[in-house]
């Protein structure tokens, strides 16, 4: 995407796009129609001012960095600037792929995300289905209010809670473990525990909030279906299985696609806070590696290459999952 496109140029594209759409023969758009379009643009010129700030924002803070990504193929030296630095082709990528940590990073990234998906994705659905069976009232409302609340806890406080609760000497969880007669576990110093700590704390924080969207979908289920099923003697479980769950499928698919679209980026702010030298072997993911090698060690080009690799894999996953969903279920993002 060219970033130097001026607004005039953009409007020109719009005119072209707009005028070719309504009549199916784009070769020679009727002059009348084009005039109408231009009139519309002139009439609504203020609307272009309305989008101008966000247009500038996305160009500056999103498209210019995309253009800046070329440093992944260069040997970026700040003094020379993005343009002045020398091209090196795929050198940084090759260095990354051949490094001894490449497979560890890839494995950690994929395993943490898959783990989170497998555990974290079904739970809001189950909780929503169960909540939906409770009559509206104080009990339902309290469960909702309480389970939504952790969503608003910041990552830093969340990490602080995890560290405090899991402390081997003073943490409440280890006190319970000791109370039951076991040895305390050094959760955060043990690579084997890291992924579970990360995923389960995420489940605690986000399951309740995740139910909202499913509850909205369940509220849209036609009551007549349930009434008919009751008349036919269906039990509650049968009605959940045959009526409610199928009603949630489109929502599930969309959320699954969106989840996978963010697959390799999500949660990295929390991982960064929980990382320490002792669990690094299990907690080092591509996104945190980009941060350490790029910003702490200032290897800009190398880190940009690693980040680009991450983004490309991510985009490929998204497109693949979307295609599969489209074929199998007719629900898809585009």
């Amino acid at each position: 995407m060219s970033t130097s496109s001026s607004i005039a140029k953009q409007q020109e594209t719009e005119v072209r796009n707009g005028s070719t759409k309504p009549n199916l023969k784009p070769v020679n758009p009727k002059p009348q129609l084009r005039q109408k379009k231009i009139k519309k643009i002139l009439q609504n010129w203020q609307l272009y001012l309305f989008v101008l700030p966000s247009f500038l924002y996305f160009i500056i803070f999103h498209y210019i960095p995309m253009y800046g990504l070329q440093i992944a193929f260069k040997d970026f030296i700040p003094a020379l600037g993005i343009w002045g630095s020398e091209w090196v082709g795929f050198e940084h990528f090759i260095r990354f792929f051949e490094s001894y940590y490449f497979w560890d990073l890839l494995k950690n990234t994929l395993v943490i995300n898959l783990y989170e998906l497998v555990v974290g994705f079904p739970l809001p659905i189950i909780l929503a289905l169960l909540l939906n069976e409770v009559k509206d009232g104080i009990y339902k409302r309290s469960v909702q209010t309480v389970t939504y609340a952790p969503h608003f806890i910041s990552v830093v406080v969340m990490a602080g809670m995890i560290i405090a609760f899991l402390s081997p000497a003073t943490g409440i969880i280890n006190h319970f473990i000791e109370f039951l007669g076991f040895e305390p576990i050094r959760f955060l110093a043990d690579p084997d525990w890291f992924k579970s700590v990360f995923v389960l704390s995420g489940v605690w924080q986000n399951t309740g909030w995740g139910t909202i969207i499913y509850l909205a979908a369940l509220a849209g289920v036609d009551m007549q279906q349930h009434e008919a099923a009751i008349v036919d003697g269906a039990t509650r479980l049968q009605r959940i299985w045959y009526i409610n769950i199928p009603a949630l499928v489109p929502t599930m698919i969309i959320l699954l696609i969106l989840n996978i679209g963010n697959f390799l980026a999500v949660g990295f702010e929390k991982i960064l806070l929980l990382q320490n030298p002792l669990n690094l072997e299990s907690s080092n993911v591509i996104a945190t590696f980009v941060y350490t090698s790029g910003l702490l060690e200032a290897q800009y080009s190398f880190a940009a290459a690693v980040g680009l690799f991450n983004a490309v894999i991510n985009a490929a996953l998204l497109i693949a999952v979307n295609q599969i969903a489209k074929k199998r279920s007719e629900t898809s993002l585009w």
Partner: protein
Amino acid sequence: MGAVIKETKADKTFKIFNYSFLFIALMIVLYPLIYIVSASVSDPSAVNSGEMWFLPKGFTLEGYKLIFENEQIWKGYLNTIFYTVLGTLINLAVTLPAAYALARKDFVGRGFLTGLFVLTMFFSGGLIPTYLLVKDLGMIDTIWAMVLPNAAAVWNIIISRIYFQVTIPTELEESARMDGCSNFKMFMKIVLPLSAPIIAVMALFYGVGHWNGYFNALIYLSDKDLYPLQLVLREILVLQEMSSSTANITESMAEAMHSKEQLAAIIKYGVMIVSTLPIIVVYPFLQRYFVKGVMIGSLKG
């Protein structure tokens, strides 16, 4: 759900199971929250030894006193309030007009612009080019680094756009135009007054984001006077704790560190509460707005 027909035995079992399951879920979420509140007002030695596990033991407000005397926390608090207010105002000024324009069917170019915005949700330049850009713009160690790189979020523009599409009738716009009302006037005088719920939802979503965010501050700020609360918290809750909980501590060392650790422990739980306080206070009243925001988003994946 109206139970017209008598419940079967299976249904009753289900109901019992359901209520107990939800009760367990409720307790799992609630317990850590209660623990934090209790720990923040308990004698730290009772907390650390595990003696205090549910209700406060050895009630003391010493922790809160230390927090209120801590200048760094105060400064962080004020900085965060400032970033949150300024950042949210910028967010609203950027998001709402754009969402309204994109909601208008007679806006030539809406498809192209929406595509341009949405694409950034799925592909971005990533951390390093963004950081270099912010650096080149001279925003490192300025307040602008806290409010401009996240001046808008695609998802929020989409939600607002859907809201405008659904709630503002086209006829209203047409008749306003007949009366010679400009788009600007229409937006300020007609659309915004009709859109209080979406303004609240957006202010809340963006506001919570600013309040809770730490990563931008981590990479763009090195001047401690500009640190938002979350970075101060990171030092108290994460950096100090990590060093003490991962090091192999011998008995004698532990003895020496004991008093320092006691002090750290007593303010640890307090700062969790103090930092989340504004959200805790508004949450019960505004819960329905948050929920509404998520639901609008679900209307049109």
